[in-house]
């Protein structure tokens, strides 16, 4: 009965109609005359609740039917993801059994995770800090490297998109450098900056700059000619063109670039930190591997996944807020 509360008046009315039909069917064992009388009663009373002997049967039918109607939507929304997760946990448990416990089982890992997350921000020396610190340090590196890349890459993308000459000049360089694995840049960073932390930031910088340059440039090249004609007819200044036409129209492309860049940066930071050490989620994974603490490695994998998911989700939210209807002819 409770779930009937969720119905809008409209759907409740349709259920009433359904019930009327059902009720007719349920009364089929009684005499034909009474069945007709019941249906007449419903039609004459309309949507008002039917009083009398049939009233009780109506409410009982509704309690059976209303939750069934609700379940469908709920099942479609909740069941598949839950099933997917359950499948993952089941395979994980099977692997755990198959490897005779060298991969810890889900239950053990969950208990370890609860223990770890009960105190995420502790410091016991440089190599033993809470998971919260590790994640924050990694995010800081990503933010720095990514921020620098955005500061360089987005203006560069604007220039490449706006000027054919620069586009032809930089395209071969971008094509050459883009496919290089970010980690190949790490030794160069270590050599130039003579430190693990700047080298990691450098690696993030170099891998996250390309999606932003390319997407911004494409966005600028795809600014509808109509908008540029408007700018020319209104004789707008370069500054107005940039702020009122180019920037808003490139923004969705740019944000796609930013999203790809952040995704790549978050992928790369783990690998970079494994090599450079220090405090960070990637280093933590490697450290726990050296300690043969597999439970923590699995927890780290989940943490990396969830943080990446949140970053992606936040950026998608920002992107949709800044996307406007395009010109349609």
């Amino acid at each position, binding site marked *: 009965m409770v779930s009937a509360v969720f119905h809008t008046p409209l759907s409740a009315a349709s259920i009433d109609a359904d019930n009327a039909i059902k009720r007719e069917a349920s009364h089929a064992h009684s005499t034909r005359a009474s069945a007709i009388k019941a249906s007449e009663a419903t039609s004459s009373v309309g949507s008002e609740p039917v009083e009398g002997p049939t009233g009780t049967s109506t409410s009982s039918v509704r309690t059976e039917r209303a939750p069934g109607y609700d379940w469908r939507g709920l099942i479609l929304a909740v069941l598949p993801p839950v099933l997917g997760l359950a499948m993952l946990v089941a395979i994980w448990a099977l692997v755990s059994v198959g490897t005779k416990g060298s991969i810890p089982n889900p239950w053990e890992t969950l208990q370890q995770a609860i223990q770890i997350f009960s105190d995420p921000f502790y410091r016991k020396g440089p190599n033993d800090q809470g998971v919260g610190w590790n994640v924050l340090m990694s995010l800081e590196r990503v933010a720095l490297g990514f921020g620098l890349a955005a500061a360089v890459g987005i203006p560069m993308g604007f220039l490449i998109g706006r000027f054919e000459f620069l586009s032809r000049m930089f395209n071969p360089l971008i094509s050459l450098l883009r496919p290089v694995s970010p980690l190949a840049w790490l030794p160069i960073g270590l050599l130039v900056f003579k430190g693990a932390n700047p080298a990691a930031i450098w690696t993030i910088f170099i891998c996250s700059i390309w999606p932003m340059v390319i997407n911004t440039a494409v966005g600028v090249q795809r600014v509808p000619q*109509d*908008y540029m*004609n408007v700018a*020319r*007819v*209104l004789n707008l200044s370069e500054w107005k063109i940039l702020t*009122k036409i180019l920037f808003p129209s490139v923004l969705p492309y740019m944000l796609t670039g930013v999203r790809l860049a952040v995704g790549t940066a978050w992928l790369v930071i783990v690998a970079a930190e494994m090599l450079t050490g220090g405090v960070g989620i990637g280093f933590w994974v490697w450290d726990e591997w050296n300690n043969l603490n597999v439970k923590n490695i699995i927890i780290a994998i989940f943490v990396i996944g969830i943080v990446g998911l949140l970053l992606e989700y936040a950026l998608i939210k920002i992107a949709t807020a800044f996307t*406007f209807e395009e010109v349609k*002819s």
Partner: protein
Amino acid sequence: MNANQTTKFIDIVGVEQTFKTKKGPFCALRDIHLTVAKGEFVALIGHSGCGKSTLLNLIAGLTTPTQGHLLCDNREIAGPGPDRAVVFQNHSLLPWLTCFENVYLGVERVFGAANKSTGAPSENKVQLVERTNAALALVGLTPAAQKRPGEISGGMKQRVGIARALAMEPKVLLMDEPFGALDALTRAKLQDELLEIVARTHSTVVMVTHDVDEAVLLSDKIVMMTNGPSATIGEVLSVKLERPRNRVRLAEDRHYVQYRKAVIDFLYTRQSHVEKAA
């Protein structure tokens, strides 16, 4: 103002337009001679691909002719400018600005700075806002001023486009099939509004259209163009119907029917081979 300036407000002399394509040069327009008087309403009509829009773009200054020259108010048209405002076919409103801001963008540009040629001083923000609101009121869009283009109907968008153009107080209003994308009823309504606005503002208008009724109803002069490639002006028809014009009364008007027949005859009898080479 002398007589020459009045009768030859826009003067197009021997204009030819050739585009470079991969298959070699493509001649879109040749041998165009046309004059538009001040306050005159001219319609360019022809089959698609006949270079109507190319000619309009030339007057707007968005493209430069390969041969010949164009004058507006005795000055060579060297590039686009706010004295020749354009109403685009697909309205071309900036979707991230409200209707008010879209109109304000042009107003601010034209009146926000001191005008060197007319000597008009720069106006302050209150005056600019006033102008913008007046333009929106002219097309009956005051209630929708703070809405974005995505939130209003196609007819309303086109009205904002017209308001944006009119707010700049252009010498010439150029319209590129302004009502082409609208349904027939909305189109008729906007045509009536346009007639009223033009009568009030005494604007000089050049309008590209492919709608015979629209051309006869609105214009003083219908320029009929031959089919492309290398299209040119086939015939110029002066429409001497009294203003203000009323579409219902004109429907049975003898002269109206004759003008209409003349245009249809040109388009469908003499220039009927549509898209032969396109």
